[in-house]
């Protein structure tokens, strides 16, 4: 940036003065320097690794791809919310418990109280977002760390899930939902498989494998994956291209400064907790309608996976910086690693060791690429 000579300020036309302090950067470096795409390096590394170690194991056959893509999509759904919230300066540890809770909220009214499944789902979403808003409200009012408040929610929601299911049904697993979901549009919204005809065509033309009975191994794209993509795209657009997105960055970057220029920080934070609750509800709805049952131990520890995806994707734990696309790439890395380790046949006792090691490697790789590219080192 050049300081112009005195008197030149208002008179000189806008001319491109080349500041010697900004050297030209190659397009590639600028690509990698974006917070969105720093995680891209980690994705490439992970695919290269599993391409070598698990190439012929079926990991990259159509049903293998569906397998890890499903895990990725689930994580994208809650990872988007976690990323937005982290950028906004807060954490939500109750996402996993919310998943279990919403599942019960869908299953119990439908099976035990005769509520139509569409209505159960909608009511469950409303309840989830109300609880999210309550979390946000408490955090904003009391100025307690969100870590603590949502940790309390984690316990209370998990406990409620167990207590209510035992109270009404005397068990902790509630099944039999499949009969109620036939013909329901809402159920289809979360559990349908798209483009079956296309996959049959692929199988008939030898591009994907067939089952012995002639059907394709993969019968369609699950709605779950569509939800993951939609949430990521919408989250990204809102964050980077709207005023609300700017306010999210501000709330996380410096909440006081933001308030002083009139950004509605409290409103933003409460809304973000409603977004994470929404994500948890989508996750739960897809899961419950896929399996036809709810259980009180669903979603355990998923909030940490969401945070991991966001951090791998470049979101700062301190807030104010990050990207939703990055979190989606982080979700991809996590899904590929989690399932990929199984494909390589590594001994299962060591599974968590390898998982942790690979995630650490991915994060370090991402951050070292980002540092080199932005010139910090």
């Amino acid at each position, binding site marked *: *940036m*050049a*300081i*112009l000579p005195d*008197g*030149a*300020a*208002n*008179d000189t036309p*806008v001319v*491109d*003065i*080349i*500041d010697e302090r*900004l050297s030209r950067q190659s397009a590639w470096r600028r690509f990698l320097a974006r917070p969105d795409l720093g995680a891209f390096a980690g994705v490439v590394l992970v695919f290269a690794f599993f391409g070598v170690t698990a190439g012929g194991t079926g990991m990259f056959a159509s049903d293998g791809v569906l397998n890890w893509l499903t895990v990725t999509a689930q994580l994208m759904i809650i990872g988007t919310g976690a990323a937005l919230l982290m950028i906004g300066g807060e954490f939500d540890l109750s996402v996993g418990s919310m998943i279990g809770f919403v599942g019960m909220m869908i299953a119990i009214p439908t099976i035990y109280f005769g509520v139509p499944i569409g209505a159960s789902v909608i009511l469950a979403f409303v309840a989830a977002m109300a609880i999210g808003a309550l979390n946000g409200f408490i955090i904003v009012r009391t100025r307690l760390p969100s870590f603590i408040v949502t940790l309390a929610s984690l316990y209370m929601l998990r406990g409620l899930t167990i207590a209510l299911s035992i109270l009404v049904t005397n068990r902790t697993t509630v099944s039999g939902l499949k009969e109620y979901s036939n013909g329901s549009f809402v159920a289809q919204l979360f559990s349908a498989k798209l483009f079956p005809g296309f996959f049959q065509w692929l199988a008939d033309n030898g591009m994907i494998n067939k089952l012995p009975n002639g059907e394709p191994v993969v019968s369609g794209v699950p709605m779950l994956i569509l939800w993951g993509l939609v949430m990521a795209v919408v989250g990204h657009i809102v964050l980077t*291209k*709207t*005023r609300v*997105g*700017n*306010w999210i*960055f*501000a709330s996380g*970057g*410096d909440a*006081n*400064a*933001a*308030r*002083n*220029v*009139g*950004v509605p920080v409290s409103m933003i934070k409460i809304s973000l907790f409603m977004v994470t609750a929404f994500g948890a509800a989508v996750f739960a709805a897809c899961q419950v309608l896929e399996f036809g049952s709810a259980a009180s131990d669903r979603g355990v520890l998923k909030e940490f996976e969401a945070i991991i995806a966001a951090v791998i994707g470049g979101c*700062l734990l301190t807030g*104010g*910086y990050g990207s939703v696309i990055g979190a989606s790439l982080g979700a991809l890395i996590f899904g590929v690693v989690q399932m990929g380790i199984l494909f390589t046949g590594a001994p299962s006792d060591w599974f968590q060791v390898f998982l942790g090691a690979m995630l650490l490697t991915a994060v370090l790789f991402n951050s070292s690429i980002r540092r080199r590219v932005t010139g910090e080192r």
Partner: protein
Amino acid sequence: MSMNVQTVEAAAVQPDGFGRPLIEVHNLVKHFGPVVALAGVSLTVRAAEVHCLVGDNGAGKSTLIKTLCGVYRPTSGDVVVDGKPVSFASPREALDAGIATVFQDLAMIPLLSITRNFFMGREPVKKIGPLAFIDMAFADKVARSEMRKIGIDVRDPQQAVGTLSGGERQCVAIARAVYFGAKVLILDEPTSALGVAQTSMVLKFVRQVRAKGLGLIFITHNVRHAYAVGDKFTVLNRGRTLGTFTKSEITLDDLQTKMAGDKELQDLSEELGGTV
């Protein structure tokens, strides 16, 4: 508005809107429970005037700023803006009334781009159907041209504000306030953390802003800086204004003495052999 130096001086003399009182503070008092932070502050700021508020640490400067810009409500006393008495319930209301404050922390978020910081809270939108998106192209253009007006050529307004120096950031904050139609600009210790070159950049910009017809309240404990740029000086001591002086009415040394409370600095000065 392109004026050369002579015209600027001439405008200050002609009352073409300039010279009218923009903000008047009468006997402002602020208590926090038993603590008396402000015990009677009075001052008037006119258009095209830099009014320096000097006071040592603990004099009540930051309480005064926060009361004027709407963070606190005064316990008693009144504030009159453009002839009308006002009472602000929030910083947003003060902003809407034309009183902009540049805090010491600048309300700049280092990780965000210059453009995003510049338009924080007041982002320009373009609508596509029912959805409103930030008009980033327009925002970038304006941010870049406003910065040029200060004399800084930002090659890429999408670069993070953290890459600017302290003085440059200070100027961005001021330019932002001016762009959004501030009538009165309150600057809280703008030069206290800056080096020599950057201080002169900021002070130069302050004079430019004054030339546009804004009223500036320049709060500082650095009397030298205040004297370099100010038209009027008000001394704040222990929550009370001790008097207002024009530049011709007071010398730099006297101002310093008044600010420090006459006796103590005198004694210290003698002890240190007159180097204070």
